[in-house]
């Protein structure tokens, strides 16, 4: 019953190993297929449970285009509920977030739902006979979380979250949390959204493209010499020891730590400035591990399809239409550290991402130029995106943490190992091979 039964798109033909067809960015039927196969039948990131620390805290999200609420119930459990009344579908929450809720009351006829989505009461009870369970709020077929990262799968048949994340996906998340002395996050500074007139897939790509910095972000490099990217991304190709990784399952990474030339480069500071933090890490993990963490910093990676672990940011890639996307981000605030450190992280986040930041608007205009460039007829012969960079020097590799499953590949940080990894998994998903 999907809108694309007829003249189905042939993804095998449009997604080759070394190139993909440009119409995949612009075709409305492709977008509908993606909403169904990737965002409804697959696992997607919803939010982090530290966003809703207390009972009655809630945030709203969209899974594909379907509105949901993520809420903390009285028993401390996190629920992901359809953001539409079980009676006639009226949206229950029309803001981004809130707190102190004991229930959700619908504005149309006043039905009241518990924080667990159960129908609690309704006016004129005598108009209904029998039990009303069938009138609880709908919820995704599967909801699961890993260390506070909440994922959902609408259709319910995507298999376990574990299999979706895989060891590498979990390891990426572990690396982010290891930066907190207590191993916990404190997300909650707000998700700032950047609107872009481009398809959503430009973002998994460019967020993990190590090849574009020297050109696309030349103005930043000129205006702010000595950022963490100087050595890890801007430096000449052959001096540069950072790596591009395909962890399989669509999870891809720019591994910068191997390219850093100093510790704490990722925080744009030095140890003396954050001594308390360094000590706390040492206390928690032992000095050797702490030293390694202060060098390595957070991951720079995509958890397929919509979660970007953007160093000290989390980002959600939200499809809106074939030609429109929202790139949300929030700083990766840490639990168990002093406020000064989190303020530093927040200021860094304001500089890096968001519509007025020093980086993202340049990526956005380029994504919009790609979208303009791909105003093509689907049959255009030459309408291909090249993914070939680094194919020859790319190596098989179990993944950056020795946790890989053999599907891993690693290449030079400027190679399209990441894009190839994304598209390989994309083709599997779109052709039902997952």
């Amino acid at each position, binding site marked *: 019953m999907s809108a694309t039964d007829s003249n189905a798109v042939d993804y095998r033909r449009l997604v080759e190993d070394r190139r993909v067809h440009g119409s995949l960015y612009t075709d409305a039927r492709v977008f509908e297929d993606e909403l169904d196969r990737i965002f409804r039948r697959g696992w997607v990131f919803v939010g982090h449970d530290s966003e809703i620390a207390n009972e009655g805290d809630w945030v709203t999200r969209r899974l594909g285009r379907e509105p949901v609420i993520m809420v903390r119930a009285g028993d401390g459990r996190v629920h992901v509920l359809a953001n539409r009344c079980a009676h006639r579908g009226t949206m229950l929450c029309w803001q981004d977030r809130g707190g102190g809720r004991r229930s959700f009351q619908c504005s149309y006829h006043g039905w009241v739902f518990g924080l667990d989505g159960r129908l609690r009461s309704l006016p004129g009870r005598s108009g209904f006979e029998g039990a009303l369970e069938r009138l609880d709020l709908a919820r995704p077929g599967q909801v699961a979380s890993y260390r506070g990262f909440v994922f959902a799968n609408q259709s319910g048949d995507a298999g376990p979250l574990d299999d979706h994340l895989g060891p590498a996906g979990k390891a990426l998340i572990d690396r982010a949390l290891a930066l907190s002395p207590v191993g916990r996050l404190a997300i909650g500074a*707000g998700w700032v959204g950047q609107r872009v007139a481009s398809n959503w897939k430009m973002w998994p790509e460019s967020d993990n493209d190590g090849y574009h910095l020297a050109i696309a972000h030349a103005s930043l490099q000129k205006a702010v010499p000595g950022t963490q990217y100087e050595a890890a991304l801007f430096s000449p190709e052959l001096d540069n020891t950072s790596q591009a990784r395909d962890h399989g399952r669509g999870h891809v990474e720019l591994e910068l730590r191997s390219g850093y030339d100093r510790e704490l480069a990722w925080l744009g500071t030095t140890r003396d400035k954050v001594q308390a933090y360094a000590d706390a890490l040492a206390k928690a993990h032992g000095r050797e591990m702490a030293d390694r963490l202060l060098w390595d910093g957070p991951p720079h990676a995509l958890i397929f399809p919509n979660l970007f672990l953007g160093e000290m940011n989390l980002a959600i890639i939200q499809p809106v239409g074939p030609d429109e996307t929202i790139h949300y981000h929030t700083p990766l605030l840490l639990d168990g550290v002093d406020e000064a450190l989190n303020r530093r992280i927040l200021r860094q986040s304001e500089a890096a991402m968001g519509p007025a930041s020093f980086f993202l608007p340049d990526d956005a205009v380029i994504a919009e130029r790609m979208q303009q460039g791909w105003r093509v007829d689907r049959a255009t012969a030459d309408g291909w995106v090249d993914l070939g960079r680094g194919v020859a020097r790319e190596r098989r590799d179990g993944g950056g943490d020795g946790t890989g499953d053999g599907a891993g590949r690693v290449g030079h940080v400027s190679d399209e190992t990441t894009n190839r990894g994304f598209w390989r998994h994309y083709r599997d998903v779109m052709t039902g091979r997952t």
Partner: protein
Amino acid sequence: MIGLSAEERAEIEAFVFREARLADEADYAGWEALLTDDMHYWVPFGPAGYEAGARMSYINDNRTRLATRLRQLMTGHRHAQTPPSPMRRIISNLELLERTEREYLVAGNFALYELSAQATRELRLWAGRTTWRLRRTDDGLRLCRKVVELVNASEPQWSLAFII
């Protein structure tokens, strides 16, 4: 604006309109020359009812970061503003909120029309309320604080790579 002499009023309006024109015309150096060394430039995420720095903002520039912002624009490689967006901003409803010995706190509403000339070439609208803190210096009035509250500050925004 009540509580001002006709001269003061004309002077303040002239300053605000000049500031707008320099920003509209991407004259970054000219615009920077209007600022004091303790300039604070804030575009809050939502209404300005919180401490800048405690939560996310679109822009929360102290003088140093603002200098960086302008320097980046002046490199000529800021793709998001290559070429600079043709734009004009309407400023109206000017009210004097407060005055001290040396400063005037003035607020007004604005609507800015931007041609996103770098890719989509669509006309984009930015609307909201601006608060200016103006200080009288030996070089005349200078801007020491600018706060821009967008009507739709709660919503995702197109690239805001120019001076709003």
